[in-house]
C-alpha cells in the first residue's frame, strides 16, 4: 500500500487540520483527497469552448501514438490535440494576466483619485518613486507639484490598458537586446487589455488553429502582464504606500492573539487594507475594542494582501494560501476581510462553525454567506471603520472552542530592487556591482526566483522549502514573492541567520552585507520587481548583454493558479529558464510541450520545464545556471598572476 502523503510540513497547519476534523470542518486538504484531478483536463486535452463538445482528446494509453491515433485525436470542429492544448494554455495566461492587470487598473484608478484630491485618507508617500515613473514615461517634472505630476502619471497608466497600437511603455525598461528580440518575434504588447481580449478571440471556436501562433499570442499577453499590468500595480502602489525596505516581522498562525480582536486581511489588493492598518491604530477604535473586553486590535494577513502590508508596515503573516481556512479553525479570528483572488468560497461555511465574520469588499468578488462592505475609494476611511467595528462586535461572540497554535517564526522582508541596490552600496554608491562581482568570482553561483502558490495535491510548503534549501546550499541566492516566500519564512529562511543553510560562498556574502540568503521581494504582482532586478544585473555589466545571458533561473514548485502560468510565461519570454512542479497543463500534446520546453529556448533564451520533485527541479535550475556560467566564461576559477616587470614588457611586445 502506498505511503500516505503528509498534508503539510508546518506543525501549526497540521494541528489545525486535526482540529478541523474534530470540529467537523471540511478543508481544501479534505476536498483534494476526496476529488482526484481530471486526468484529461489536467494535461490540456479537453476543449469546452463550444457546445459541439466538450471534446476530450486524451493521449492513447500505449506509449507510442500511431499516425492513425493522432489523426483521430480531434475535436468535433476538427481542432487537433495541439490546438486544444495551446488554446487551454493561453486561456490560462489570459486569466492570469487579466487578474494582475485588473489589479493594476484598480490601483491606477485610486492613484488618479488621490492625485486629484478626491480620495481622502490617502497620500502620495514616495516622491522618489513618483519622479522615477515620471522620468520613465517622459512626464514633465520641472517645478510642478507632486499632485500635478501624479495626475499625468495616473492618466498615462490608465491609457496603457486601452492602448491599441505601438508598445506598452514599461517595455523600454528591459535590456535593449531583449526589446529588440520581442520586436523581432512580434510579441511586443500593444496594450494590456488588447492582448488579453485577442487571446479570447483567437481561442474562440474556429479562429486561430496554429498552436505556435496561439502560443506566441500567449507570450505577448504575458508580457503585457509582467512589464505592464503587474508593473503598473507595483509602481503606483509604491508611490501611494511607500517603496518597501527591510522590515522585521513574524509569520504563522501563532500571530493570532487570544486576547485581542483579530482581523485577518486576505486577498491581493492593498488599497483598503492600507486604510484598515491605519484605522486599527486609531485610539478611538482601540478604546472600542477594550470596551468589548479585548486588549487591543491585532491585524494579520493571508496571501498577497498580507505580503503588501507586511513589506510596508511589518504587519505579521498568519499564513499562505492553504492556511486561509485553518486560520478560521483557530476559532479566534473575529473578521476575515477579503478583496480579490485566491479566496476560497468555503470560508463563509467554515465561519459558521465559529463566530467569524467574512467580509467581502470588492464588487468584483462577492461570496454568498459573507457580509459585503464595499470599498469606496472616495470614502475609504469609513469603509475601513465599518469593517473594524464589525470585527470588534464579533469579539464577545467567540465560542469556547479556541485553539491557537503557538508557532511563529521571525522574518525579514521588503527587498525591493531599489533597496537591494541601496543595500549593496549605500546612498552614494548604490549598485548591483557587488552582486555581479560575487557571481563572477563564484561566491554566488547564480540567482533563482522561487515564487508561486500552494497546492493541496502536494505536501503543503514542502516543495518550496526543500527546493530553496537545496538552492542556497549550492550557493544560489534566492529571491521570492507570494505564498512561496511565506513557506520559506515559516522555515526560518528569511532571516540573516539562515546563512547557516547556505553554501560557504553565499553565506560569506550574506554575512558581509547583512542580508538573508532568501530575499522576500513582495506580492505576486511584485514579480515585476524581479524583472527589474535582473535587468539591473544585465545593465551593470560583466554578465552578458541580455537577461538570457545571466546565470539565473525561476520556479513555481507548488503552483495552482492561472496567474502562475502568466508569470511563468513572461519570465520565460524575458529569457529565464523556469521550472514548474505539481503537474503540467500541456502534457496532452507533445508538440505543444516541446515548443514550450525546447523551441522557446531558441526563440527567447528562456524555456519552461516540468519537474515535480523539488531536489531534481533545483538541480535542473543549477545545471542551467552552470550552463550560463560556462557560456560567460566564469565557470572556472582563474589563476591570479602578479605580473613582474619582465612579464609586463613581454605583454607590451605582443
Amino acid at each position, binding site marked *: 500500500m502506498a505511503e500516505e502523503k503528509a498534508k503539510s510540513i508546518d506543525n501549526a497547519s497540521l494541528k489545525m487540520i486535526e482540529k478541523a476534523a474534530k470540529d467537523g470542518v471540511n478543508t481544501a486538504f479534505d476536498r483534494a483527497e476526496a476529488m482526484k484531478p481530471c486526468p484529461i483536463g489536467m494535461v490540456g486535452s479537453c476543449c469546452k469552448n463550444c457546445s459541439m463538445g466538450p471534446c476530450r482528446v486524451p493521449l492513447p494509453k500505449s506509449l507510442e501514438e500511431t499516425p492513425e491515433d493522432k489523426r483521430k485525436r480531434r475535436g468535433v470542429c476538427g481542432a487537433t490535440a495541439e490546438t486544444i492544448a495551446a488554446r487551454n494554455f493561453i486561456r490560462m495566461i489570459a486569466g492570469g494576466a487579466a487578474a494582475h492587470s485588473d489589479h493594476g487598473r484598480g490601483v491606477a484608478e485610486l492613484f488618479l483619485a488621490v492625485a486629484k484630491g478626491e480620495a481622502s485618507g490617502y497620500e502620495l508617500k514616495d516622491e522618489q518613486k513618483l519622479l*522615477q515613473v515620471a522620468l520613465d514615461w517622459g512626464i514633465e517634472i520641472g517645478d510642478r507639484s507632486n499632485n500635478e505630476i501624479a495626475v499625468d502619471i495616473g492618466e498615462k497608466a490608465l491609457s496603457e490598458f486601452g492602448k491599441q497600437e505601438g508598445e506598452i511603455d514599461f517595455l523600454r525598461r528591459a535590456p535593449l537586446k531583449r526589446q529588440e528580440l520581442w520586436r523581432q518575434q512580434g510579441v511586443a504588447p500593444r496594450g494590456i487589455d488588447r492582448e488579453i481580449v485577442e487571446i479570447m478571440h483567437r481561442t474562440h471556436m474556429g479562429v486561430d488553429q496554429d498552436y505556435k501562433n496561439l502560443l506566441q499570442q500567449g507570450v505577448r499577453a504575458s508580457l503585457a502582464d509582467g512589464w505592464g499590468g503587474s508593473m503598473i500595480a507595483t509602481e503606483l502602489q509604491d508611490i501611494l504606500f511607500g517603496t518597501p525596505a527591510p522590515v522585521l516581522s513574524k509569520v504563522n498562525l501563532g500571530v493570532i492573539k487570544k486576547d485581542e480582536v483579530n482581523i485577518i486581511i486576505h486577498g491581493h489588493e492593498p488599497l483598503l487594507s492600507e486604510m484598515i492598518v491605519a484605522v486599527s491604530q486609531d485610539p478611538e477604535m482601540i478604546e472600542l475594542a477594550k470596551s468589548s473586553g479585548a486588549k487591543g486590535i491585532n491585524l494579520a494577513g493571508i496571501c498577497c494582501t498580507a505580503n503588501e502590508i507586511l513589506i510596508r508596515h511589518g504587519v505579521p503573516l498568519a499564513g499562505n494560501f492553504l492556511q486561509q481556512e485553518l486560520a478560521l479553525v483557530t476559532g479566534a479570528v473575529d473578521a476575515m476581510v477579503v478583496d480579490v483572488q485566491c479566496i476560497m468560497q468555503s470560508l463563509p461555511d467554515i465561519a459558521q462553525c465559529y463566530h467569524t465574520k467574512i467580509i467581502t469588499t470588492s464588487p468584483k468578488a462577492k461570496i454568498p454567506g459573507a457580509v459585503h462592505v464595499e470599498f469606496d475609494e472616495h470614502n475609504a476611511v469609513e469603509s475601513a471603520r465599518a469593517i473594524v467595528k464589525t470585527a470588534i462586535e464579533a469579539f464577545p461572540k467567540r465560542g469556547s472552542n479556541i485553539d491557537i497554535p503557538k508557532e511563529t517564526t521571525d522574518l525579514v522582508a521588503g527587498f525591493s530592487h531599489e533597496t537591494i541596490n541601496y543595500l549593496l552600496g549605500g546612498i552614494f554608491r548604490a549598485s548591483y556591482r557587488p552582486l555581479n562581482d560575487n557571481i563572477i568570482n563564484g561566491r554566488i553561483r547564480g540567482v533563482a526566483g522561487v515564487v508561486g502558490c500552494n497546492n493541496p495535491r502536494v505536501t503543503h510548503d514542502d516543495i518550496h522549502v526543500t527546493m530553496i534549501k537545496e538552492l542556497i546550499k549550492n550557493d544560489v541566492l534566492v529571491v521570492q514573492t507570494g505564498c512561496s516566500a511565506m513557506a520559506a519564512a515559516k522555515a526560518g529562511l528569511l532571516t540573516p541567520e539562515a546563512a547557516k543553510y547556505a553554501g560557504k560562498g553565499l553565506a560569506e556574502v550574506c554575512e558581509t552585507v547583512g542580508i538573508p540568503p532568501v530575499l522576500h521581494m513582495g506580492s505576486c504582482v511584485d514579480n515585476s520587481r524581479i524583472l527589474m532586478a535582473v535587468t539591473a544585473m544585465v545593465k551593470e555589466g560583466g554578465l552578458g548583454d541580455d537577461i538570457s545571458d545571466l546565470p539565473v533561473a525561476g520556479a513555481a514548485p507548488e503552483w495552482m493558479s492561472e496567474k502562475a502560468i502568466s508569470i511563468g510565461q513572461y519570465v520565460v519570454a524575458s529569457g529565464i529558464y523556469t521550472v514548474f512542479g505539481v503537474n503540467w497543463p500541456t502534457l496532452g500534446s507533445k508538440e505543444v510541450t516541446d515548443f514550450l520546453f525546447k523551441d522557446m529556448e531558441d526563440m527567447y533564451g528562456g524555456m519552461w520545464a516540468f519537474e515535480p520533485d523539488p531536489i531534481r527541479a533545483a538541480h535542473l535550475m543549477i545545471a542551467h545556471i552552470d550552463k550560463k556560467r560556462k557560456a560567460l566564461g566564469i565557470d572556472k576559477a582563474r589563476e591570479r598572476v602578479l605580473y613582474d616587470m619582465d612579464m609586463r614588457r613581454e605583454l607590451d611586445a605582443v
Partner: protein
Amino acid sequence: MEYKIEKKPAPGRDEVEVLGDTFEEGKPEGEDVGKWRQKLGSREDKLKYLQNGERYWFSEEWFGSEKRKTPA
C-alpha cells in the same frame, strides 16, 4: 540629505562654517529601522539619486553592458 553646518572659530578669523559629520548616528530606531528613502530630502536630491543610484535607467548615457550600443 541635509548637511550639518557647524560654526567654528578659526585663527585670524572670527568664525567659519564647517561641514559637520555626514554619517548616521548609531542604530536607527522605531519607524526608521530599515528605511532609507527618507535620507533623500529635497526633490533635487531625489533626482540626483535617480541619475546616479538608478543609473541603469536614468543616467545621461547608456550604462554598463549597454553603453556601447545604439538605442533600441
